[in-house]
């Protein structure tokens, strides 16, 4: 199997459930060793994409390769880790037993099970509760266990579907550290998350998906090129506010106008235009665009 092939490559991958189109022609490439953020609103097709890439559901059309092999290849699954969004493990087993079962199913050499399980438990901070039944775990602990399951066997590719949905801030920090650790050892990470600040902190590259197709993708630098400018004004009529749209997309909230994609060089022109229309400028705050700004901007553009 060629090591030079991408971790994931899809061509016009689509999925329909009856009349509902869950995924409409997904084409993307995730290089090996990268942390790839997959973003989108609820129902955009993120989890469907992960299930397709794992071979849990069959595509309606299109093609996809994971680690150089067609999706669903049994041999490839040995080198994949997966934390589902709906994380659930045998609650009648202990965490140690759950991990051992996954070592068996992976399958990893029996001689490595002890070290693998010990290491995975330590990484996710469950060593002290290793011999407690999963049924006694909190949701956050069960999600940590799911992460430990995904880490077994030093996989080449790990799918994390909303990996911090049940975690507290400390747990989220731990997950970010784990993702950085995976990237450091060359594991590609496919991260589905609603927490955009989290994605921004750990991902090398992101794709934004909406209505089942990618509407933007690239590295963080490629995506976050604009400046967000927040201006506090008074004395502007609704009509004159409307004319400011020539400076870019505006979010209005009381006396605050936020320009979501404005070049910093045009800030003086903006202030001059407001004053010329009889407005008074109380505050101008320019800042770099965040992933959340860009995400919302992309979705609004898509809607319009």
């Amino acid at each position, binding site marked *: 199997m060629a090591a030079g092939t991408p971790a994931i490559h899809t061509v016009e991958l689509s999925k329909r*459930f009856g009349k509902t189109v869950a995924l409409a022609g997904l084409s993307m490439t995730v290089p090996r060793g990268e942390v790839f953020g997959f973003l989108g609103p609820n129902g955009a097709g993120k989890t469907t994409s992960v*299930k397709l890439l*794992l071979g*849990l*559901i*069959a595509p309606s059309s299109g093609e996809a390769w994971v680690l150089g092999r067609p999706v669903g290849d*049994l*041999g490839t*699954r*040995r080198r*994949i880790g*997966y*934390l*589902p*969004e*709906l*994380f*659930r*493990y*045998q609650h*009648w*087993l202990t965490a140690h037993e759950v991990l051992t*079962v*996954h070592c*068996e*199913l*992976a*399958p990893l050499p029996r001689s490595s099970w002890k070290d693998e399980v010990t290491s995975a438990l330590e990484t996710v901070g469950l060593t002290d509760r290793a011999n407690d039944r999963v049924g006694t775990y909190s949701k956050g602990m069960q999600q940590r266990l*799911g992460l430990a*399951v995904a880490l077994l066997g030093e996989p080449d590719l790990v*799918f994390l579907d909303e990996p911090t949905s049940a975690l507290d801030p400390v747990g989220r920090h731990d997950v970010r550290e784990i993702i950085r650790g995976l990237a450091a050892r060359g594991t590609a990470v496919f991260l589905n998350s609603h927490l955009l600040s989290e994605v921004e902190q750990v991902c090398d590259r992101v794709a934004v998906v909406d209505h089942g197709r990618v509407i933007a993708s690239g590295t963080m630098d490629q995506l976050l090129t604009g400046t967000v400018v927040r201006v506090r004004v008074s004395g502007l009529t609704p009509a004159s506010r409307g004319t400011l749209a020539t400076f870019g997309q505006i979010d209005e909230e009381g006396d605050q106008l936020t320009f979501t994609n404005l070049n910093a060089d045009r800030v003086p022109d903006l202030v001059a235009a407001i004053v010329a229309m009889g407005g008074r400028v109380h505050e101008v705050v320019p800042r770099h665009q965040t992933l959340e700004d860009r995400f919302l901007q992309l979705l609004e553009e898509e809607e319009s």
Partner: protein
Amino acid sequence: MPPVMVIARLTVQEASRRRLLLALVILTLIVVGFSAWGFNKITTIRRADGSLPSAEEVKVVTSQLLIAVTFMYSGVLALSAAVVAGPLISSEVESGLMLSMLARPIRRSEVVIGKWLGLGVLVAIYAAGSALLELAAVDWATGYVPPHPIQLILYVGSEGLVLLSLGLLLSTRLSGITGGVIALVAWLMAWIAGIVGNIGTGLQNQAVENVGTISHLLLPSDGLWRGAIYAMEPDAILTTLRTGGTFARASPFSAVDPPPVPYLAWVVVWFGLMLALSVWSFRTREI
């Protein structure tokens, strides 16, 4: 250990950890204890004139009572198999547990066969264990041992496997409750259809008789139950039934002949078909 055996082991482990096995063992011991006391009363009960029943009378009464007790056991086994098999796959799909399992290099056929094997082992252990205990208790209480005890265990155990197979097939598509209820209703309908078929035999009406034949082919639980009955009937009962003509065959608690070999071969094929159908159904299901 191959994946199919890991899944089978997990199925047995789950039943054990959830205390299903413990509950069945305790209930079985209670039933065996009470029935041993009851069977013992047959030998000491007196007629109005103060005389004790003869050895032959004890044998006949015990054989009939044993058929009734075994019917209860087979009912418990069928009910347990249907209720446990109903959610065997569906509950793990609904809860999300199956997601992380199927992301491993494991075929869906291995999941289905592993679960069938795991639950099948439990059904076989329960059928053999409870039957041996009950037969030992009856032997101790009355000195009666049915003519074909091994066949009896095999027929009752196979009846449990029939319900397990049906429940598992339904579990690949339907929720646990729905699958369990359908399996139970199917079991009862097959039993009633078997009785209808027997009435057809009694009346020598081919169309009515066919109802039983078709039901025995579609769901062989009643056909196997008839085999279990035959295995428990002493010669005296069989002779009476045979001299009674076709009408003697109309009872739901009697059997004049054992299930024919071609029918038993069909039952083996039926198990294979059910497993194949379950594998196909689960393989084409989107998780």
